[in-house]
């Protein structure tokens, strides 16, 4: 793939705008809260688009398109099962406590609700995971650009990381979120023509269905047994593992996304953030997964499109870029590549800003230096931006040792995020849950995840302790690791809580359901701005999509 001058012009224009936004926003940063939490001042349309953009990292776009080519429409489960229900839940039921408790971060909510050790456990694992996933994302981008453009790994990694560092350093969370909105628009406008062109060339949805095995165009029809579909998963593992544990663990407790909603300028806006975000989120499969499916149909048509082979199959990770090279002339090609860079940047900025807040407030202010003047924490927040970016770059180089990005990411989710949702569920909805219970549950859940991975084998992975069971795919293994971790955490938290002394109810106001008076919507909110109404509309639309493509 060769770029023309116009492509470089477009990339440069984009870089100028992101840096310019950071430069303009820098004046709004006067305190550590401005830098780390946007001082709860961001309007709904920005928080909601930033909410999904922060999750749309480069590995998401590349990986979902690859997965579309490999598994077909079943990939949509990562959206219609693995995201939307959890986004509804966090907006309707959990945001009143995150926002109402006035916690500055998700770990800080855990300190208010439980105790210091639970907060610290969550903060430390979260910080590690954040650096890790931002490094993985950077690696994905560097490797891809090396492969398709011939750019050196080091220069593409340093250039894009340097730009994210610059605008995050200047304007903190606000700058990151404003840029995420610009990135979101660019991703959608840059990838939509590709979807239209690829599907059109492959003869529309009917042309695609007629050229591919039936499994490729259905999301539910082949999930009755793991041997019936290429993913090797069945309904229970899919719904419980992905749809419940992993999805709720991510969308409801991961500070990377929750932080965006917590920056909203009112309680209603905070609750509506994930609900409004759900509308574009459920349409993303049409611009990333469907082109991947179309690519497989194009290969059957002998029109000159082919994925490069890899082993006995294809190098699916190149689906997105080979499609761009086939359908985008110079000019739009520059836009497509800029969109890919934008997705990388939005994902990385999400990680960096979440890490800043957790490090500064939960680890540094919590343990290293309490009671310093606010300007000190602002400086620490800024320095964390630099150190965090440096650690991510180091991780990117380490990640060159690994191959499959999605699997690795999911493995880490399984270890860290899966038990967390049990802790939050009990913490927010069961006043009897105690700090010792939460901490014991989290440690036991994480250990159970690691143990399950050590005792089971899938595609040659895991079973480093003994081999008790074999899964048909690593995806099935990950879903089941998550289920085991969640269940262990849930049960251990209950048992330990019942054995330890509960906190008085007066200390749990604004933290637990049943003790807290849920806020009524602001009087000026119209009917369509009510979280309940939005949740029903989103839910119905999501069910319809599942039925339509089932």
């Amino acid at each position, binding site marked *: 793939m060769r770029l023309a001058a*116009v492509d470089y*012009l*477009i990339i440069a*224009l*984009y870089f100028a*705008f992101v840096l*310019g*936004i950071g430069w*303009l926003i820098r004046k*709004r940063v006067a305190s550590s809260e401005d830098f780390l939490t946007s001082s709860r*001042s961001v309007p709904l349309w*920005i928080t909601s688009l930033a909410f999904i953009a922060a999750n749309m990292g480069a590995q998401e776009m590349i990986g979902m398109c690859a997965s579309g080519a490999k598994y077909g429409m079943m990939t949509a489960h990562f959206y219609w099962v693995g995201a939307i229900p959890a986004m509804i839940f966090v907006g309707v039921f959990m945001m009143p406590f995150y926002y109402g408790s006035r916690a500055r971060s998700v770990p800080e909510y855990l300190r208010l609700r439980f105790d210091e050790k639970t907060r610290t456990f969550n903060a430390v694992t979260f910080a590690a995971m954040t650096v890790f996933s931002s490094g993985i994302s950077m690696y994905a981008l560097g490797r891809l650009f090396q492969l398709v453009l011939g750019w050196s790994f080091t220069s593409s990694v340093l250039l894009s990381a340097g730009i994210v560092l610059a605008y995050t350093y200047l304007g903190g969370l606000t700058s990151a979120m*404003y840029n995420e*909105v*610009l990135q979101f*628009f660019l991703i959608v*406008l840059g990838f939509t*023509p590709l979807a239209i*062109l690829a599907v059109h*060339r492959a003869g529309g949805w009917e042309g695609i269905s007629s050229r591919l095995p039936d499994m490729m165009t259905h999301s539910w029809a082949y999930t009755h047994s793991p041997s019936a579909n290429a993913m090797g998963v069945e309904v229970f593992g899919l719904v419980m593992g992905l749809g419940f544990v992993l999805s709720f663990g991510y969308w409801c407790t991961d500070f990377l996304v929750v932080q965006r909603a917590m920056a909203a300028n009112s309680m209603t806006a905070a609750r509506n953030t994930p609900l409004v975000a759900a509308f574009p989120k459920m349409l993303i499969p049409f611009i990333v997964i469907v082109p991947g499916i179309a690519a497989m149909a*194009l290969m059957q048509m002998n*029109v*000159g*499109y082919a994925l490069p082979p890899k082993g006995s199959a294809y190098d699916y990770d190149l689906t997105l870029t080979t499609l761009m*090279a*086939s*359908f*985008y*002339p*110079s*000019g*739009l*090609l520059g*836009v497509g590549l800029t969109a890919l860079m934008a997705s990388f940047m939005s994902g990385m900025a999400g990680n960096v800003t979440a890490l800043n807040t957790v490090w500064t407030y939960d680890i540094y202010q919590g343990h290293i230096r309490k009671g310093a003047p606010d300007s000190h924490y602002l400086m620490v927040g800024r320095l964390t931006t630099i150190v965090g970016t440096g650690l991510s770059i180091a991780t990117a180089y380490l990640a060159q040792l690994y191959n499959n990005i999605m699997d690795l990411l999911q493995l880490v989710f399984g270890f860290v995020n899966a038990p967390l949702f049990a802790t939050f569920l009990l913490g927010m909805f069961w006043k009897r849950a105690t700090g010792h219970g939460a901490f014991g549950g989290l440690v036991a859940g994480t250990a159970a995840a690691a143990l399950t991975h050590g005792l089971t084998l899938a595609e040659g992975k895991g079973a480093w302790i003994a081999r008790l069971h074999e899964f048909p795919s690593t995806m099935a293994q990950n879903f089941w690791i998550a289920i085991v971790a969640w269940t262990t955490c849930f049960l251990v938290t209950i048992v330990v809580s019942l054995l330890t002394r509960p906190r008085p109810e007066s200390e749990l106001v604004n933290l637990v359901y049943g003790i807290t008076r849920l806020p009524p919507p602001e009087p000026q909110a119209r009917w369509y701005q009510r979280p309940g109404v939005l949740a029903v509309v989103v839910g119905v639309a999501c069910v319809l999509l599942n039925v339509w493509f089932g």
Partner: protein
Amino acid sequence: MWDLRLPSGLFFTLLGLILCATGLVGPAHHAPLTQANVNLYAGAGMLAFGGVMLWLGLRRS
């Protein structure tokens, strides 16, 4: 507080102009798998989006 619609409107307007110009200058130049003047159509789309954003932002201020 400034409005994000202005800079993003400006960005997509400029992007649309660049793409339209590229499409008009070299209409015969197309990607391997399509005959369409993709740059022109996508450019028009971006120009429209950028224009709407600018209009919304300017109307407010």
